[in-house]
């Protein structure tokens, strides 16, 4: 019974996320056409669109990772469909509030809503829109925090604290009780998610103190640190949730032996857990009042957070597919391409997080280039792999690749073409977050137009994925399932 309701709520989650994804891609395409001067949005509308797109995308793909691990955790521990429903309701309410704040209230301080902009007296939106935007974040935060803590509590019922971090594997000897990689990665990521959501709580409390009391002003540097502690960490941890699903499903779907936890897998993910929490300091390079030591921590943590996880994952996946007879299905191809997208985006990120490069690449299109690569061609594909697998699992249909190669081709050409235009823009110093590029930036507009068309191709591919998944997911509600 519990399993059935878990399937049902997972199906509703999958459909909700995909509907919001298609809508947000459309917003992205509108922005790119505007930057290419085919469309002419008012500047306020452009920035409201940017804000909606950014928050929705980050939110839904963090939620997608949580949906995936919530479902797969039921293989190891008891999971709660109730908590998932609770988070779903909060997410839907949060999205409605967010979209109202931006499109009805015209709030457009971008997804980072950096202090003091949301409260600025000269801002071109009403105070109620700021209130609604910040409260929408509260609603998201409460839903996901309760859900994540709930999942963590369930894991801890079966595994001790040292076991969730797989410390017993660090000696290199065969331990008495093994920690599956899925449990290790899920735990590491959930802890990161809980931590960054708590950073959001602190940040929002400071915002509300200034908004609802008189005579209180916040420190801009502290607020910026908190914003990136929350935002950067959430975006990164979301990706690791997707990877947890890959570790769990990729060998299984490919007809191979499950991945095991080795000392280097344990070490790599423990390093990632620690370093990802301080990597956000690389967002503060331009804040020269922050002491130099923090900037160096930011640079080193950026390397150490990404390299161990990337190395062990790339190694594990390579050993799985190299010279092995693996069953290639659509799920596995999505996982495989998603890992490649994540690695390419990761290299772009490490280049940008190196201080000497950041001086040049800071706030250019290189930034959306790398994070769109590891999102649109990384985490999205990893989670989509899970969605595809789940939809076929729920409906009892066979997951083959044969009839879906046109879909994959569209996703590949559209996705990589779209991000390539960002990279080319970044490499020639086209600034990010411009509604329209000034005359001096010659290649901004043509690159934007090309990117918009590539994104249309990606959207068509996504639409095809969506139609297949929705048909299969609705089977979770049929009495026979």
């Amino acid at each position, binding site marked *: 019974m519990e399993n059935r309701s878990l399937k049902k709520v997972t199906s509703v989650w999958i459909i909700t996320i995909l509907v919001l994804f298609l809508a947000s891609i459309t917003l992205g395409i509108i922005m790119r056409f505007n930057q290419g001067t085919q469309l002419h949005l008012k500047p306020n509308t452009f920035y409201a669109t940017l804000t909606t797109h950014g928050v929705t995308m980050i939110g839904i793909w963090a939620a997608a990772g949580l949906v995936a691990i919530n479902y797969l955790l039921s293989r190891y521990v008891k999971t709660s469909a109730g908590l998932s429903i609770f988070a779903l309701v909060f997410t839907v309410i949060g999205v409605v509030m967010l979209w109202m704040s931006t499109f009805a209230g015209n709030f457009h301080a971008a997804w980072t809503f950096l202090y003091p902009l949301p409260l600025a007296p000269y801002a071109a939106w009403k105070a109620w829109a700021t209130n609604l935007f910040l409260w929408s974040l509260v609603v998201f935060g409460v839903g996901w925090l309760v859900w994540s803590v709930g999942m963590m509590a369930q894991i801890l019922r079966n595994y001790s604290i040292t076991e969730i971090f797989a410390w017993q594997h660090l000696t290199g000897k065969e331990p008495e009780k093994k920690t599956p990689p899925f449990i290790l990665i899920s735990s590491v990521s959930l802890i990161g998610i*809980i*931590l960054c959501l708590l*950073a959001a709580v602190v940040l929002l409390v400071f915002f509300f*103190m200034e908004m609802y009391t008189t005579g209180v002003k916040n*420190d801009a*540097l502290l607020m910026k640190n908190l914003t990136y502690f929350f935002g950067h960490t959430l975006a990164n941890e979301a990706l690791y949730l997707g990877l947890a699903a890959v570790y769990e499903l990729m060998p299984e779907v490919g007809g191979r032996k499950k991945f095991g936890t080795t000392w280097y897998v344990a070490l790599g993910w423990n390093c990632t857990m620690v370093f990802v929490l301080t990597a956000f300091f690389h967002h503060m390079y331009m804040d020269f*009042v*922050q*002491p130099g030591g923090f900037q160096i921590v930011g640079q080193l943590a950026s390397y150490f957070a990404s390299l161990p996880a990337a190395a062990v994952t790339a190694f594990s996946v390579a050993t799985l597919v190299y010279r092995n007879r693996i069953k290639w299905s659509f799920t596995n191809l999505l996982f495989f391409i998603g890992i490649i997208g994540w690695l390419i985006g990761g290299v772009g990120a490490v280049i940008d997080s190196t201080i000497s490069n950041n001086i040049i690449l800071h706030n250019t299109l290189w930034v959306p280039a790398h994070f769109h690569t590891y999102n649109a061609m990384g985490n999205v594909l990893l989670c989509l792999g899970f969605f595809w697998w789940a939809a076929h699992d729920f409906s009892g249909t066979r997951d083959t690749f044969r009839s879906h190669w046109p879909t994959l081709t569209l996703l590949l050409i559209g996705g990589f073409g779209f991000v390539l235009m960002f990279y080319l823009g970044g490499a020639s110093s086209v600034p990010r977050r411009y509604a329209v590029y000034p005359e001096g930036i010659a290649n901004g507009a043509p690159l934007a137009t090309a990117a918009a068309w590539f994104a249309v191709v990606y959207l068509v591919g996504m639409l095809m994925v969506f139609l297949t998944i929705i048909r299969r997911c609705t089977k979770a509600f049929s009495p026979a399932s």
Partner: protein
Amino acid sequence: MYKSLLAGLLALTLAGPAHPDGGVYDLSEEEGLYTPIADVPLHLASDTTQLSRLYARQPVMVALVFTRCTGICSPFLLRLAEDMRALDPREKFKVLVVSFDPRDTQADMDGYARLFQLGGDDRWLFATTPQIEALTSSVGFRPTWDSLSGQFDHEALLVGVNGNGYIIRKMAGIRERKDIASLIKTLTGEFIPSYPLPGEDRLLSCFTYDPVTGVRKPSYGLLILLVPAAITFILMLWMGLASRKWRLKKS
């Protein structure tokens, strides 16, 4: 004349540090920033022109002086001339020295330029204007006449004016070379690191800064960054211990 220069320097040394902000002369370095400077006519050694014609060609640094000054004007100009030679060999802007004393004639100003050996230097322009009131009030400079000493009571003031005629920086008093360098950077459009100091009403700032010693220290705000980590740690520990008990009971 050199005697008066020396006397001025001595007076300056005895007077202690200048008042960069406000002080007895009611001069603020922030007042009137990013507002246009009055576009007054200027009588120069060779011709007459409008101030706007000067700044349209190059950014301008305006220094307000009077030739009969027995106080700060001479050491102020002497120091500025030295700093200019050291800091801007490529002459990316003009220094316009304007007299705010209606008694000064163009001949007085030319003599003043020669005194500092700046007469033949193209970068330096020594001028008088018939609309000195308009100029001084647009930059917030308020000299007061002291009939007892027969002198203006005033502060030394340097005003940076950009190519659009906007006041982008003001500096009062004789300043260190690094301040002049920062004024030059502002004029030539380079990045100047500046950060608002946390006010009294500021909640938990990350750093404290002592403007006198220039020392920056971490403050309580930074500890706030540890709060989410501390709560997560306690939460995990608590859940870990609680579930251990639960597991023991079950087994």
